[in-house]
């Protein structure tokens, strides 16, 4: 009998502790970590920054967790209005000012984002109306809240994916720099007047890549191939401006040997 009572008591204590915990976590005043947030950053601090800027009426874009141009101008205008140094960096002074000027309800914002709702008005008035419901099921997974991604100027994630497919199909056994080089060749061809002007045009050009002809392009690429493509787009070119490459063991065309060669990376010879 006593044993049952004790365990019952324990259960109650546990439950109330859990209750307390969730109480405190939603009520604590959340504040930024101590990093300086700058253009291009991604993550929870950016979500908080965007929410707070929206709260005080400077930011009217999407709260997506990526510090893009919209956030940048909002931050600069905030710094201007509050008489601070206008540098577009969220340093300690700026963050303190922001925390003082605004409220941030992390659970509410992230709940909304995770539900996939578009909401662009996080601010005093219209928030309280529909606040009660989503607060109950605050998701604990914070990593998934960022709903956008940085992409290099002029490229979509799909373009990158398609190129990653091509790189993986063509060079998956090659060293990392060899994969970057293959991606760079695709980019050099887009730039070149003698080749098509789009990534898909270059990749699907008949007889251009063996991986396309035999269907290997549709293997699922790994993360390395994606990274290689990103590096190439961001400016790395280990092929040194090559337009062609071939594997000397399997090359069938004699013509390719007449091209001036630049270098060999892994199994591939890169040439002009």
């Amino acid at each position, binding site marked *: 009998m006593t044993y049952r009572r004790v365990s019952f008591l324990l259960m109650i204590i546990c439950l109330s502790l859990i209750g307390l915990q969730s109480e405190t976590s939603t009520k604590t005043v959340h504040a930024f970590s101590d990093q300086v947030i700058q253009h291009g950053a991604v993550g929870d601090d950016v979500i908080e920054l965007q929410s707070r800027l929206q709260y005080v009426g400077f930011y009217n874009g999407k709260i997506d967790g990526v510090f*893009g141009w919209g956030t940048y101008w909002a931050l600069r205008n905030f710094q201007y209005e509050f008489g601070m140094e206008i540098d577009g960096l969220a340093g300690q002074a700026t963050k303190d000012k922001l925390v003082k000027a605004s409220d941030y309800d992390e659970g509410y914002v992230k709940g909304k984002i995770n539900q996939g709702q578009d909401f662009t008005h996080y601010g005093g008035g219209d928030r309280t109306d529909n606040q009660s419901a989503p607060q109950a099921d605050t998701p604990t997974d914070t990593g998934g809240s960022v709903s956008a991604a940085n992409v290099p*100027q002029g490229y979509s994630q799909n373009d990158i994916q398609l190129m990653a497919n091509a790189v993986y199909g063509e060079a998956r056994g090659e*060293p990392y720099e060899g994969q970057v080089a293959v991606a760079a060749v695709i980019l050099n061809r887009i730039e070149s007047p003698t080749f098509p002007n789009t990534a898909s045009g270059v990749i699907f050009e008949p007889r251009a890549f063996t991986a396309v002809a035999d269907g290997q392009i549709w293997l699922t690429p790994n993360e390395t191939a994606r990274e290689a493509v990103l590096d190439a787009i961001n400016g790395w070119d280990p092929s040194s401006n090559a337009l062609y490459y071939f594997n000397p063991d399997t090359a069938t065309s004699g013509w390719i040997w007449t091209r001036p060669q630049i270098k060999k990376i892994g199994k591939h010879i890169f040439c002009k």
Partner: protein
Amino acid sequence: MVRWILIGVLSLALIGTGFWGYREHQEKNAILTQAENTYQRSFHELTYHMDLLHDQIGTALAMNSTERLSPQFVEIWRLTSEALSNVGQLPLGLLPFNKTEEFLSNIGDFTYKTAVRNLENSPLTDEESETLKQLYSQSGDIKDELRQVQHIALENNLRWMDVQLALANPDEQVDNTIIDGFKTVEKSVEGFNEGNSQSSVIGTSSNDHKYKYLNGDKISEQDALEKSKEIFNVENEENLTIAESGEGSDVPMYSVSYHNDEKRAYMDISQQGGHPLNILVSRDIANNQISLNEGAEKAQDYLESFDLDSMSLFQSSEYNNVGVYSFLYNENDVRVYSDAVEVKVALDNGDVLGLSTNNYYMNHSDRDIPEPDISEEEAKEMVNPNVDIQEEFLAVIDNDLGEEVLVYEFLGVLDNDTFRIFINAMNGQEEKVEKLDGTEINFASNF
């Protein structure tokens, strides 16, 4: 005896038929792949062209001078016809896709009419600007829808051949995400009715000036090895391999690669002066410990260790725990776009993972940068009055003719988009207008 001959002949015929059948089968597959590839190409090009079209219409909104506006309309017109021909090559015969085609040809008509008109004498009317704005938002919707379909298609390896089959047999239950997606695209165009009716500058340059600034003495293979040991931070030479570049190379260099169990490293180093042109380190990267901002300082320090000072941070982006920074050469507060350097920093421990100085060494030289002839205020007046200018710089860029020109660079906002506008600092001409993006909806996170 006769029987055995007969059996022999027949089995030979059987093997022959089998072989022939197999060849036929292989040929059929090759042709199917070929056709599939053509469809894939048209589809991916269509999405790309729609994306570009959206950007170009946005850019036209931010333009001011008629000398730039006419070519811009021609460019949009060209893109619509490309996109139209892409649509035409897709196997959508059984799907009503005419609204989208109509939309495209509407844009084409509109831009053609305005492009051939003398905009100097009869500039865009208010209604026309309004139409342009509508086309802009509509093309944005279509672009997003198409990108979404493209994402699904890439994610699930969807085949156009299957789409064709699905379209032909409406009774059969097949995964027809592509068809559904295209129907949504078609829906989003319906709102439009007639009544209302790339290139980046950074690091690009003409090829005249080739590696003028690679100063210093020629280094030997042994010197290059020593230098790479220092840069890769390794003691012994066992895992290092080095090779000299061939005759096709723009500039003679050594390529050094290194690998151990944890990481691979690669470097191109110029023979003249021993300057690193490319460094790439690849290893597994843990979660962020340092911020993008701290990473930028590491990147700057790293550049200074190679005597690349007077570089100023131009752009920074975070991808999967890696910070990618791009720097521009800065001479007396004038930033030179062609002399760009990129650095990659791991945000788990702050190690530098990459350096690319190829553009810098290819384009850098001692320039004679003149004083601007017109004032900043005068240049500002050349900018479209609807653009709210937020930041200004002096810069040197390569214009459309491939000449280096001194420009005022204005960063401004029009509605919710940011534009980079270059005004010639000598004659006030609008040299380039660029719409800036760099952030995209993460399609994968919506599922």
